[in-house]
Structure formats: structure tokens, C-alpha cells
């Protein structure tokens, strides 16, 4: 049943020139899942996001987004995308938070049409959702890294997306801002059943909110086979957030924090929990 999944990838292969980056990758992300793609640099995490968006065309295989085959960027508004370094790139552009969010309303406004009152209200509401309504008229360059990233999130939320694809959204922002961003994403998952797929290198902070972790290595996804160091951090998250469990092999035995061997191990070694 394709429709059970927000994202479904079957036998996908992709490479740049002569280098094969993904070899018959298959995975799916269920509706309402909050999943992370992890893996070393150069394994193709960002490339996977671009494939899902239809910005790149796979050499083999099939991608389905919300039940429809992806053959190019056609899910305007339904699939929100927060790019890598989106906030810092936006700070080089002399636009206000409101102007940037308004621009994302394009799928609703349409070609050669002017935005109206309802569009301005929708943009303000999206900024409110991320706690940035008081900064609507502020230039992006005057916002902190965390605030810029929240505006970037508001840009995609304004279209009420069913799927959110985020490429390392926590890079370059402090711990408090990361926590705030993740709380917003968690609320979206719980209250609006938004499917979230996030590329990240910071599994430690993200883990408490996840229910899927996909590890990209050796040209394929290995769910449940997360590198040991990262797995320990993922367990830490399980303990701090009892209503969400990291979906990995070891996690299934981690219901009781006191009995998690992985976490006790890291505590003994003075690990950062």
C-alpha cells in the first residue's frame, strides 16, 4: 500500500558522472514520522533530499512522494524544504522576515498575481507558529542564527505542508536555538501530523524527537545499523523523552533508562548526556 507512506523509495540508484553514490536504495517514511538521515560526509544525504524533491533525477528506481511518482519539482507547497545554511544565506539578502515568508506563498498566489490581505495574514500566522511574529518587519541580517532558521521554517509552514524535508537545519545555531527549533518540529508532528525527514550530524540533540533513524553508508541505507557512538546519543534521547523512541535495534531494549547498558556505559566514561 503506497499511500501508507509519505515517502517511498524503491531500488533507487544515483551517481555523479562515474561515481555511484546510491546503489539500489529502498526505504519508506510513514505519514507522521519524524525521521533523520545520518551518515558521514559525502555519503549522499543532501543528494537524497534533492532526489526526493525532484531536483535530481535517479538513474534507476522510483520515488513516490505522498503517493505520487516524483518526476521533477511538482509538489509545490505540499513538500516544504529547508536548505542547508538557508538562514545564513538569507541574511545576505536585504529582506524582512515577513517578505521572505510572503515569497513562499507563491503556490497560493500564482503567476502575475498580487498578494492580498489573506496572504499577509497567513504569513504572520506562520511567523507566529515559530514565535517570530514580533520580528516580522526585521531584516534577516539583524536576526540571530536561530531566529533566521525559524523564519526559514516559517517560509515552508506557510503553505501547510504534509512533508518537511530539512537539510542540516541545526548547523551554526546554539543549543538553545536548536532545542527551540526541535520543539517546533515536534509540535508540528504531533498536532498537524506533518512527516519530517531531516538530514543531521547532530543526532544527540535530535534523537529525543525521532522515531526513525536512517543511516546512509556504503551507497545504501542501513536502518537500525547506526554507528556506535551516535547510537549511544540516540539512547540518551530515549531516556529524556519517554513518549518517543528512537527506532533502532538496541532501542527496543531501552524502555527503562536504568537498565540501558549503552547509556550507563557513556555515563561511566563521563560522556555528555
Amino acid at each position: 500500500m503506497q499511500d501508507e507512506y509519505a515517502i517511498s523509495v524503491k531500488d533507487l540508484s544515483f551517481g555523479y558522472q562515474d561515481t555511484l553514490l546510491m546503489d539500489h536504495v529502498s526505504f519508506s517514511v510513514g505519514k507522521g514520522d519524524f525521521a533523520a538521515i545520518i551518515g558521514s560526509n559525502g555519503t549522499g544525504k543532501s543528494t537524497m533530499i534533492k532526489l526526493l524533491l525532484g531536483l535530481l533525477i535517479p538513474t534507476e528506481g522510483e520515488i513516490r512522494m505522498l503517493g505520487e511518482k516524483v518526476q521533477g519539482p511538482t509538489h509545490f507547497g505540499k513538500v516544504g524544504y529547508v536548505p542547508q545554511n538557508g538562514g545564513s544565506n538569507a541574511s545576505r539578502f536585504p529582506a524582512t522576515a515577513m517578505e521572505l515568508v510572503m515569497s513562499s506563498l507563491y503556490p497560493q498566489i500564482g503567476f502575475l498575481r498580487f498578494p492580498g490581505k489573506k496572504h499577509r495574514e497567513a504569513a504572520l500566522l506562520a511567523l507566529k507558529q515559530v514565535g517570530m511574529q514580533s520580528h516580522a518587519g526585521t531584516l534577516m541580517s539583524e536576526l540571530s542564527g536561530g531566529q533566521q532558521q525559524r523564519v526559514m521554517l516559517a517560509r515552508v509552514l506557510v503553505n501547510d505542508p504534509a512533508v518537511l524535508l530539512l537539510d542540516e537545519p541545526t548547523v551554526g545555531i546554539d543549543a538553545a536555538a536548536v532545542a527551540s527549533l526541535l520543539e517546533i518540529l515536534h509540535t508540528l508532528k504531533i498536532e498537524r501530523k506533518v512527516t519530517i525527514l531531516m538530514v543531521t550530524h547532530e543526532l544527540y540533540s535530535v534523537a529525543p524527537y525521532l522515531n526513525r533513524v536512517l543511516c546512509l553508508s556504503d551507497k545504501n541505507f542501513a536502518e537500525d545499523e547506526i554507528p556506535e557512538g551516535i547510537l549511544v546519543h540516540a539512547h540518551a534521547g530515549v531516556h529524556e523523552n519517554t513518549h518517543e523512541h528512537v527506532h533502532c535495534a538496541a532501542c527496543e531494549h531501552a524502555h527503562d533508562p536504568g537498565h540501558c547498558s549503552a547509556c550507563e556505559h557513556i555515563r561511566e566514561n563521563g560522556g555528555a548526556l
Partner: protein
Amino acid sequence: MILDIFQYDFMRRAFIVGILLAVIIPCIGVIVVFKRLSLIGDALSHTSLAGVAIGLLLGFNPVLGAIAACLLAAFGIEAIRKRIPRYSELSIAIVLSVGVGLAGVLSGFVKNTANFNSFLFGSIVAISDFEAALVIGISVLVFLAFLFLYKELFYIAFDEQAAGLSGVPVRLVNTIFTILTAITVSVASRTVGALIVSSLMVVPVATGMLLARSYRQTVILSVCFAVTSTVIGLFTAHFAGTTPGGTIVLTGVMLFLLALLAKKAAGLAARRKMKGAARGDK
């Protein structure tokens, strides 16, 4: 009386044409600057000189030759930019080289050098009825296109990929913008000069960016600064006997420096106020 200059027909025409160009050139300039293609005006205007030379050699209106050459150059830049996206600024340098080279070679065959030279620094006070009508028509076209494509151009200038993902017809809008840029530059080359037009495209935008608190304000202020420098420049050129194109651009640079000083002064005042408030708290 300072307003006596309006008794001359050519001066009235110069003001109308100058102000119209001062409105549309920054509209193009804003997008060009934010797309990080600030030198595109230079490349196009220099290539327009090759078109001027062809026009003069073959005996048709050089402005039409300039438009054709600018269109070719603009599409050439876009084509090269797509092939080397990481070094997109190289596309401008390549087309600029072709333009300068061609203009240099072809100008050697032009018999009426005075006519050719008038395109280097412009001759806003000596434009014909046909050229004035062309400027008016093109100005209306560019202004309406900028107004109706405002949000599309904003989105593409901010993030071309995101614009495509939102459904903006990026290729179509870029093509329209390329055509508008090419015809604006070629017409402006005739009036303010090929060597100066890119300054008019960039300097008012830089001044607007210093003081603006939003993208919209940047656009409005850029147009205001361009119109102000055109009006002051034309008056100064008339009374001081200087070249109008060069005087307009130098006035624009003066306004930029004044805005820079004003911003610095405002920053210092704000810092003093904050220090004062901090001392008061203690």
C-alpha cells in the same frame, strides 16, 4: 533663473528621458545586484558598442544594433552561467571580453567616429524623436514587467532553486528579465553612455541598501536616489558645461558617500545613546 533651462526643447526631452531611465534602471539593478551579477551592465553595455559599430557600418539605426548585440550578449551570459554555475561571474567576464574585442575591432572601420564616440559617454541632450519614443516605450514596458513580476523576481533573486520548488516558472521569468535588461542597457547606452550605464544600475541600489529596512524600501529608495542624481546631474551638467552622463553618475556616487556618512553617524549616535542609558542604569 534655474528653471530657464526648461525653455529648451532638448532639455525638456533630456529630463523626461533621464527620469524615465532613472526609474527603470535601478529596478533592473536591484535584481542584478542581488543575483550577484553586478557587472552584467558593464558586459552588456560594452557589447552594445559592437552593435552600434555594426549599425553605423551597415547603415541602420545604431540603437537597434545595440539592442540586438545586447540581447545576444545577455543570452550568452545566461547560457555560460548555466554551464558553470559555481563560477557564474566568469560568464560576465567572457562576454565582456567578446564585447570589448568586437567593439574595438569594428570601431576601426567606422567612418563617423563622432557618432560612435557619442555612445561611449552618451548624449542625452542630443537624442532624436525616435530615440525618445523608444525610451518612453521601453520604460513603460520594463516598469510594468517589473511590477507584475515583482514577487517572481524577488523569489528568484533570493533563491532560484526555492523559487522553482514553489512553482515559479524560473526559466520564463529569467528569459523575460534578460530581454528587459538587454534593451534597457542598450537604450541607456545611447543616453547616458555605454561606459556609465552599469554605474547607474549599481550605485543607486548600493545607496538604497545602506538606508533601507526591507527589500521593498531598497527598490523605492534606489529609484529615488537614481532620479535625484539624474535631476541634479542634468542641472549641474547644463550650468557647469560638463558631460551629462558622467555628471549624473558622479552625483550618484556623492549621494552614496553621503548616505554612508549618515549611516555611520546614526550608528555612532545610537551607540552613545546606549552607553548613556547603561550609565544611567548604574
